[in-house]
């Protein structure tokens, strides 16, 4: 392995290999595929948040000229093995995925798919869908987690019983799971505290906001082979879900990845794919294209989970934290599976504390079933914990940064799950903040304030694999099933060139369909680059040893006697006896064991913990409550920035999503549970005009595992923003914010209710 100094490609900013395709408009996303005889599908969605479906009459729609197939839940096969769950980050049970795909006896949220039509044009499909008659019996909607837990709340699922370690419940409920964890002695902790701060926080549902609406094309061939082209974060993940959902063998389920226009965790479970397949089948095998519009993206996909949280923290007068408590109620939407596991890990992740208690509830409501959204579960709890920590620091009379330094975890300390941390760079990161002008400069002017927050994420691992083929001319193709979500083709190209010690121009990385490369899990959870670094290293080792065997045969020595570096193979005892990479490659296709093909896989490795921090300067307009960002700086321990420009881009993008979550974005539901703002005009995402430059500071403390010590970078950037902004608003106004988003209206009333601030 090359040392840091002599690395040639890893650590360099390399232009994305697919950049040219993207700036010229040639890159093909899900909706860009056209096939002859292709049909277009449109869904009919429930206008009710909660309603019993008494009857669906599709006869009028079927008579429309140009309509080729209409499906309802009756067309979905009954899955043979309902106990299976799917996920990646947020698990969903197969029986729930089935009822989510199309409403069965009940519509469970505004936007739930009830029926789908395939026709010769999108216009005809849409018009026919509107002719489908559905008889609904509206039921009282369950709007939020607090009312969902009330004894008088309507039940979404009569067969849902709370999973808990305690006695099995006898009554159905909207609480799917109750988890508790912790350590130490809480009573003693509160007794030992000189100060205790407790407060309650609420956040609302948000959307990942990927710019590309979900899109796919399905075609069922005569022999039953199902072809599906889709922009999803994982092709094998789609293959497994579809084959279970539709009862089809995996070898007959070919999933081809299209370019993906953003996912952020929101394109993991299948939504359109099973519908398009059923329609293709029913229409005799025609290709069926299904593309969502933005209204459907908001109402019919899986947004990010909102939460209701109570945090209590105690500390001694010297600033040492004595006890940490959190009660988290996360909203799963219509089916169980909110990100309580992630939230639990993130919560007090950055803080050293012997006494901890964590309680988490996974609760269903009449909203779309949530999906992951960057560091799933982390942002709401990060907001609550970082605000409380700021209050504790103030009470003990400590600067917020010194307070965090005083309590920061180091290698060997326990995480909230009571497992020890391996190598981390939190201390190094906090030291970096202390020196940085964003922290040391003075912020002048009225109604201005500076806030700090830190965040934690424990990278996901799962399975990754890649295959390296050496061609007869010495160039190399890497094939993988790893979907290119954030530039994996580019980083894999860098890593392959590094490991094989060949020029980067000689490496071509291809992301291929499920039937052309070995199993690989989805691209999510900050895992792809990190696990692929190990897979590539293993594949490269295998390719080089095969090359050595060929060289040994030619040089008439044993393979163990052959050395390799920089495209040259030589005999250890006699370095003059040597062969070039090119000659070995050319010979390999004709001699010995034949063509060189190295496979590398990784299944279980240790997670690489990641810490990030934000420093925000804001100005609050006391007349309107509008918050303006003046300066924004992100710090992150990335382990090793394999491609710094891409790493910075991930951090900036994540921070800005966090800023949107903090200041503007939310699902506005009316009392009937109907979403009132399903458009990009009314659901307000940050524009270029809302933001200052987002500065990034990369800290590189190598992770414990992996060839370069890289850590996943994509998730943690979204954790600190609300805490940093809320703490800055407090410095500016003297008022603490307990709700997201901190819209002008919310800030205005918070100021009013608190005597106009300081």
């Amino acid at each position, binding site marked *: 392995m090359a040392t840091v100094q002599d690395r040639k490609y890893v650590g360099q900013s390399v232009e994305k290999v697919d950049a040219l395709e993207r700036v010229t408009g040639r890159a093909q996303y899900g909706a860009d595929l056209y096939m002859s005889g292709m049909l277009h599908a449109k869904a009919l969605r429930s206008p009710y948040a909660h309603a019993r479906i008494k009857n669906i009459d599709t006869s009028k729609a079927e008579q429309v000229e140009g309509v080729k197939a209409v499906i309802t839940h009756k067309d979905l096969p009954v899955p043979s093995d309902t106990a299976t769950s799917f996920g990646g980050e947020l698990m969903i049970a197969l029986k729930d995925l089935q009822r989510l795909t199309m409403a069965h006896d009940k519509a469970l949220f505004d936007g739930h798919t009830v029926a789908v039509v395939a026709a010769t044009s999108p216009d005809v499909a849409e018009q026919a869908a509107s002719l489908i008659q559905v008889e609904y019996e509206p039921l009282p909607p369950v709007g939020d987690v607090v009312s969902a837990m009330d004894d008088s709340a309507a039940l979404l699922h009569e067969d849902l019983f709370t999973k808990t370690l305690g006695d099995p419940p006898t009554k159905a409920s909207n609480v799917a799971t109750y988890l508790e964890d912790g350590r130490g002695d809480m009573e003693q902790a509160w007794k030992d505290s000189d100060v205790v701060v407790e407060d309650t926080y609420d956040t609302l549902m948000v959307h990942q906001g990927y710019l590309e609406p979900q899109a796919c094309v399905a075609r069922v061939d005569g022999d039953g082979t199902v072809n599906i082209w889709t922009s999803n974060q994982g092709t094998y993940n789609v293959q497994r879900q579809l084959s279970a959902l539709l009862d089809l063998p995996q070898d007959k389920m070919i999933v081809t990845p299209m370019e993906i226009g953003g996912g952020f965790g929101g394109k993991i479970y299948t939504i359109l794919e099973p519908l398009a397949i059923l329609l293709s089948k029913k229409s005799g095998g025609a290709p069926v294209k299904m593309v969502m519009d933005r209204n459907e993206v908001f109402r019919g996909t899986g947004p990010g989970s909102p939460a209701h949280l109570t945090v209590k923290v105690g500390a001694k007068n010297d600033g040492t934290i004595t006890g940490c408590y959190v009660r988290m109620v996360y909203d799963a939407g219509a089916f169980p599976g909110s990100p309580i596991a992630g939230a639990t890990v993130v919560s007090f992740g950055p803080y050293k504390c012997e006494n901890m208690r964590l309680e988490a509830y996974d609760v269903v409501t009449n909203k779309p079933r949530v999906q992951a959204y960057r560091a799933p579960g982390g942002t709401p709890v990060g907001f609550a914990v970082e605000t409380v920590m700021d209050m504790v620091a103030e009470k003990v009379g400590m600067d917020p940064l010194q307070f965090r330094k005083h309590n920061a975890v180091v290698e060997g300390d326990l995480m909230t799950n009571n497992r020890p941390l391996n190598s981390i760079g939190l201390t190094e990161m906090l030291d970096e903040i202390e020196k940085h002008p964003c922290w040391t400069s003075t912020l002048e002017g009225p109604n201005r304030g500076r806030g700090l927050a830190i965040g934690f994420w424990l990278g996901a691992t799962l399975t990754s694999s890649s295959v390296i083929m050496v061609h007869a001319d010495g160039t190399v193709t890497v094939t993988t099933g790893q979907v290119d979500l954030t530039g994996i083709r580019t980083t894999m190209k860098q890593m392959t060139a590094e490991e094989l010690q060949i020029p980067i121009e000689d490496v071509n990385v291809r992301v291929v369909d499920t039937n052309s490369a070995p199993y690989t899990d989805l691209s999510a959870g900050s895992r792809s680059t990190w696990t692929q670094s190990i897979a590539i290293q293993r594949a490269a080792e295998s390719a080089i040893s095969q090359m050595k065997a060929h060289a040994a045969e030619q040089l008439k020595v044993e393979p163990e006697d052959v050395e390799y570096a920089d495209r040259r193979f030589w005999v250890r005892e006699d370095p003059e006896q040597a062969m070039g990479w090119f000659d070995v490659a050319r010979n390999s296709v004709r001699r010995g064991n034949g063509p060189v093909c190295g496979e590398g896989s990784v299944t279980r490795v240790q997670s690489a913990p990641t810490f990030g921090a934000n420093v925000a300067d804001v100005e609050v307009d006391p007349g309107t409550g509008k918050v303006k960002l003046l300066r924004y700086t992100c710090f992150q321990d990335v382990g090793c920035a394999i491609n710094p420009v891409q790493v910075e881009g991930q951090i900036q993008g994540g921070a*800005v999503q966090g800023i949107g979550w903090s200041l503007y974005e939310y699902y506005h539901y009316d009392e009937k549970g109907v979403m009132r703002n399903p458009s990009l005009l009314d659901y307000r995402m940050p524009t270029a005009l809302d933001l200052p430059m987002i500065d990034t500071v990369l800290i590189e403390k190598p992770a414990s595992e992996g060839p370069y010590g890289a850590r996943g970078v994509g998730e943690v950037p979204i954790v600190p923003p609300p805490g940093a902004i809320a703490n800055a608003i407090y410095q500016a106004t003297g008022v603490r914010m307990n709700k997201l988003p901190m819209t002008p209206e919310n800030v205005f009333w918070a100021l009013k209710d608190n005597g106009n601030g300081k």
Partner: protein
Amino acid sequence: MEQTIRKAPLQCRVNGQQVEMLVKPWQTLLEVLRDELRLTGTKEGCSNGNCGACTVIIDGQAVDSCLTLGLEADGHEVTTIEGLANGAELHPVQQAFMENGALQCGFCTPGFIMSTKAFLDKHPKPTETELRTGIAGNLCRCTGYDKIIKAIMSITEK
């Protein structure tokens, strides 16, 4: 019903080429470009004029093609992302986006590049705030805009 409404003739220039065709009167320019001409570089992010992914240039003016009827282009000159490069030679805005890491998923990129081109043609030396205002109609969810702003500034500061 669509079958009873006649298609109407549309004549315009698209990326320097004369186009003559029949289109449905309610078809948007975006639909005409994508579904009829298969120029799929222009993207659909919202169909409501809110995201800018569908931006094309008509007679030098950036427009949301999802808010423009195909027939409105009659007699006009339309440029899409496919028509921006001169053969293999990229337009400076395309080049700048590539070199500065100004794209991640790339779905907003064609629209961003078209808006930027039209804006810079009129305001070759904008301040940062003018530039941010000029491209505020284009949403990007991946980059946080930072590298997009820097990419464009790299051209204007030349």
